[in-house]
């Protein structure tokens, strides 16, 4: 599983010390500015309002949805890539072990991302008319991460499954 990398500027800051860092950064900004690329002086990730590289914990992802209800890691299956060349379009199939009858069916299904700026990639309303609790799509991913498929059953219980993905190139062109 990929661990969150220390940003290069943090590492440099730690190595150089605060004053040396400020001097180095000034010199760097001057050099970049002279390269006739005005936009390069603005940190791109910040310009785009993204919290790049931040990985949510499983609790952070599930808690806002389950709100204290019983949640079990079983009965949900995910089929996706282990290694994706890029995050622009990653096939993702999820199915829930459920008879999909009027008494026992899946009511809602969430696809959650650990790293994307928007955690809920898609929310589905399901019901017994579907006959099979299965959904396939293609997701957009901002880098290697864990994906969670969370299902709410008609009994009120939540079930989920986690899939680990390595994404070589992020689906957002901001270097995250």
């Amino acid at each position: 599983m990929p661990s969150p990398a220390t940003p290069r500027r943090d590492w440099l800051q730690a190595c150089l010390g605060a004053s040396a860092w400020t001097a180095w950064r000034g010199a760097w900004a001057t050099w970049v500015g002279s390269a006739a690329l005005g936009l390069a002086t603005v940190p791109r990730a910040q310009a785009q309002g993204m919290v790049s590289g931040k990985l949510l914990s499983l609790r952070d992802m599930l808690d806002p949805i389950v709100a204290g209800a019983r949640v079990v890691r079983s009965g949900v299956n995910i089929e996706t890539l282990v290694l994706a060349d890029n995050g622009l379009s990653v096939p993702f199939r999820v199915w829930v072990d459920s008879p999909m009858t009027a008494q026992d069916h899946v009511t809602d299904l969430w696809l959650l991302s650990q790293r994307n700026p928007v955690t809920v990639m898609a929310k589905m309303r399901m019901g017994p008319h579907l006959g099979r609790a299965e959904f396939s799509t293609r997701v957009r991913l901002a880098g290697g991460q864990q994906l969670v498929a969370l299902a709410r059953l008609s009994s009120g219980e939540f079930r989920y499954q986690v899939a680990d993905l390595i994404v070589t190139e992020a689906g957002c062109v901001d270097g995250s």
Partner: protein
Amino acid sequence: MAQFRFDMPSQVRAGEVFKLRLLVQHPMETGYLLDVNNQRISRNVINDMRCTYLGQEVFRIEPSSGLSANPYVEFFLRATQTGEIAIDWVDDRGERGQVKRTLTVV
């Protein structure tokens, strides 16, 4: 009007569970990208997609920027009786798309 591709069987047996596949042509702009003038491109994603069968809503998807451009969805329905299947979607700019097919149950 958005371009799309839709696939489902035209005829199924009663009680049979069949597959529906829909691919919509849509940029699904995330709202994080900049254009050539360094201006932020506003978010424009399909935020709601509903499937109705015999006039009743049977499946609903609320995508965010997490689905890829030209979103593809695949799901299943159980055939009960001959009738109309419609999928409607709307994006952040209020542009709508719809696909309508008649399912014949034999």
